[in-house]
């Protein structure tokens, strides 16, 4: 794909230099880039088209993930696109093997619907995909016997079984696959853009009257969440912990005051003191892991512990593009990133301390400035995502819907 390579290199450079930061912006730009990649990809022979397309996406995705490993949203979107390709492939294959399912004696609703219509609705497609990806179980065996074995076969073999429409269908199926994938990626981009609305709609269910809410740092999702509650005339006041060393809490406090929300800025160290008077803690996240653990700005673990101690609900609001299929113990996952110590110490004052060293040459003064904190799932009460409210133990189900198991490691498969 020579046409799209400059775009890819450009984005890789932006990621490396941290010119684009924040899960939302990164996710959106990654999705757009992958859409370009897919549209520029030249589909080869009909055999394994989907696999070739997926391979192309994997090649680009590997570069993007390596550029900024801590930005998990990149990997999330890459895996989503791979899953989309797989799903679209399955749905087009399912169209192809429509005929097969007629012969099977089945009470399944979905199969009957497939008989009626040549073009399948999105829900049916999704159901097919889910059925196909489900692990073998009694239900799978009873319902989907013809479908599962068909998936493992290549498109050509299924085309053979049908025969008549296959030769004409090859070209259309190629274009259809690409078209469907691009459309689905477009849906994904829309979903990323509009993730705030479904989350904000749940604000009225959680915030009642005379609530005292605590948050740390600045999260756009939390801001939209609180705005929505304010629109619906809920009465609440907010304690904003400033979130050292970036002090983004000050910015959030300003924004909330502009909307007329009663806001109080407190230091991070005062959280334990104030949390006894707080009804609810609502925070944003950098990423949500497969076990329900949260990677959040530094200081969040302390807030979560304090909330647990005082039996205050700890609510994490996050769009679905932040949901990562990896577990925290996975060696691919970098849980943290250390930033420059200049945020903490003024070099002018401490430059003389940096000179002294011990016998083995290491400095006596070390400054550690981590960006993120890991919050274990047992401290989180509720996840509010654009698909609704979930408990931490449910997150693996969402992951099964959005991602495929063999995409966990994004590595280019060897070309045949």
């Amino acid at each position, binding site marked *: 794909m020579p046409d799209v390579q400059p775009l890819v290199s450009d984005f890789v450079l932006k990621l490396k230099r941290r010119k684009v930061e924040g899960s939302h912006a990164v996710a959106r730009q990654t999705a757009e880039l992958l859409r370009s990649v897919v549209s520029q990809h030249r589909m080869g022979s009909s055999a394994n088209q989907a696999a070739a397309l997926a391979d192309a996406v994997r090649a680009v995705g590997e570069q993007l993930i390596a550029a900024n490993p801590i930005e998990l949203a990149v990997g999330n979107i890459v895996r989503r696109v791979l899953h989309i390709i797989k799903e679209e492939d399955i749905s087009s294959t399912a169209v192809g093997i429509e005929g097969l399912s007629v012969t099977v004696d089945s009470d399944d609703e979905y199969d009957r619907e497939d008989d009626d219509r040549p073009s399948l609705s999105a829900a049916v497609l999704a159901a097919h995909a889910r059925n196909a990806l489900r692990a073998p179980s009694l239900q799978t065996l009873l319902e989907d016997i013809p479908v599962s074995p068909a998936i493992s076969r290549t498109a050509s073999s299924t085309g053979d079984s049908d025969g008549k429409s296959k030769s004409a269908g090859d070209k259309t199926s190629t274009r259809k696959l690409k078209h469907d994938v691009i459309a689905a990626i477009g849906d994904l981009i829309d979903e990323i853009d509009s993730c705030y609305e479904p989350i904000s709609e749940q604000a009225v269910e959680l915030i009642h009257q005379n609530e005292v809410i605590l948050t740390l740092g600045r999260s756009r999702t939390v801001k939209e969440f609180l705005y929505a509650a304010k629109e619906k005339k809920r009465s609440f006041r907010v304690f904003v912990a400033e979130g050292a060393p970036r002090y983004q809490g000050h910015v959030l406090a*300003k924004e909330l005051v502009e909307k007329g929300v009663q806001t*109080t*800025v*407190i230091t991070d160290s*005062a959280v*334990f*003191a104030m949390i*006894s008077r707080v009804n609810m803690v609502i925070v944003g996240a950098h990423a949500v892991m497969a076990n329900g653990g949260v990677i959040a700005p530094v200081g969040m673990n302390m807030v979560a*512990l304090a909330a647990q*101690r005082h039996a205050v609900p700890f609510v994490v609001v996050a769009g679905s593009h932040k949901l990562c299929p990896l577990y925290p113990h996975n060696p691919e996952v970098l849980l943290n990133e250390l930033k420059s110590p200049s945020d903490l110490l003024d070099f002018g004052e401490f430059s003389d301390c940096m000179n002294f060293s011990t016998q083995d040459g290491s400095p006596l003064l070390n400054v550690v400035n981590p960006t993120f904190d890991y919050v274990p799932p047992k401290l989180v009460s509720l996840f509010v995502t654009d698909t609704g409210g979930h408990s931490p133990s449910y997150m693996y189900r969402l992951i099964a819907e959005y991602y495929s198991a063999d995409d966990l490691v994004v590595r280019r498969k060897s070309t045949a």
Partner: protein
Amino acid sequence: MIPTPDRPRPPPRPGVRVPHALLPRPPVSSSRLDALSDLDGDDDDVDVSWARPPPPALPESIKVNLTETKNRGDPTSVPQKPKLSKAERRAIQEAQRAAKAAAKETGVKSTAKASDVNTKMPKQPKAGKASLKKDVSQANALVASDKKTDEHPPDKDRKKDVPQPRMQFDDLHRVVKAKKRLDFNICPGDISGGNARCIAMLLAFREAINDYSTPAEKIPVEILLLKSSSYVSFLIECRPLSISMGNAIRFLKNRITKLALAMSESEAKASLQSDIDRFINEKIIVADKILVQTLRDKDYCAVLSNGTVYSRVGTASVAMVAHAFGVPVLICCEAYKFHERVQLDSICFNELDAVVHVSFLTLLIIKSNSCTCRYDITPSDYVSMLITDYGMSASPAQLVGCTDMEYLNHLAGINFNFLPARIAVLAVHRTGSHVH
């Protein structure tokens, strides 16, 4: 440091003396302290003391000389009042203060140097203001001025007139402020740290006792108690007492009540002053030495009756996270900071602190809506071990409960040298066993 309108002047750094002439003149009336005294310069009563010409041996004068001077000087001082004009009085006042400040600063060292404090405290010179009053109110005025040990209260939430009377009598408290350890930029109080505040307060009391002289017809004990109550209420108005200060005041009142009626005034004063000296020495300075394992900044740390630790904000967060990761938390606290109060959360009893790190523009926009506590509560289950000068215990609540609170208050008749015995007795604690 963000300049705030409440402060008419920047604070002096330790050891730096601002010439008195540069300081702004305080307003004429100060409603707050009217109960205690007339602070406008018009009242002759206030200026009587300052009007006295300084004795020749002023900077090196020792306690005994001054006590004698004071005792003798009462009846003779009065006729001199009308003769000096206000300007002359002020001039003399300034000269005396400057001389006194110079002498004080050499005499008073920071709390860190225990031996220095011990040896130099008896040599506190008396400025010529060792004059005598006719009535208690005048004594109150003078010593209230001496006693301005308190740091400048936090800007946001103090009435405006509290700093102003302080301006008038800043020499002495600036001298006492020579003990302060932290720069003003770091904390709003000029004297910060429970120990420093307590020592400063006790030294001021000591001076008050020195300067005080009983009118012939009154009983020293009553007067002293009355005065100490008024001083304490003044102190509380400036800033809420720390727990160590509360304990110290209780100790002092106890000592006053235990004074034998038959004692002469000078004996009573000497006894009280030596009590104060010993208190400072044994409770604070020696206790610091005994606590060899100092793992955390002992800026301010008190332990309440239910084992809760009351200390600077942020301590609770650190203890909580350490506990969550299985890191032991050791609290080092002098025993005189134990308190029989109980507290469940940090909000019921606290002080406000200045908000730092907020840009001025942001502060305007969020309309100064920030709330920063100065202290917070660490629950006892986060504390692995409490280490005091009396021993260590894995159960802070029990240690506090078993420590003889009575001892802290009633020291009559008890030899101060019992301390080593106490440690031996409580060596049992170190094995980790609980006291029953």
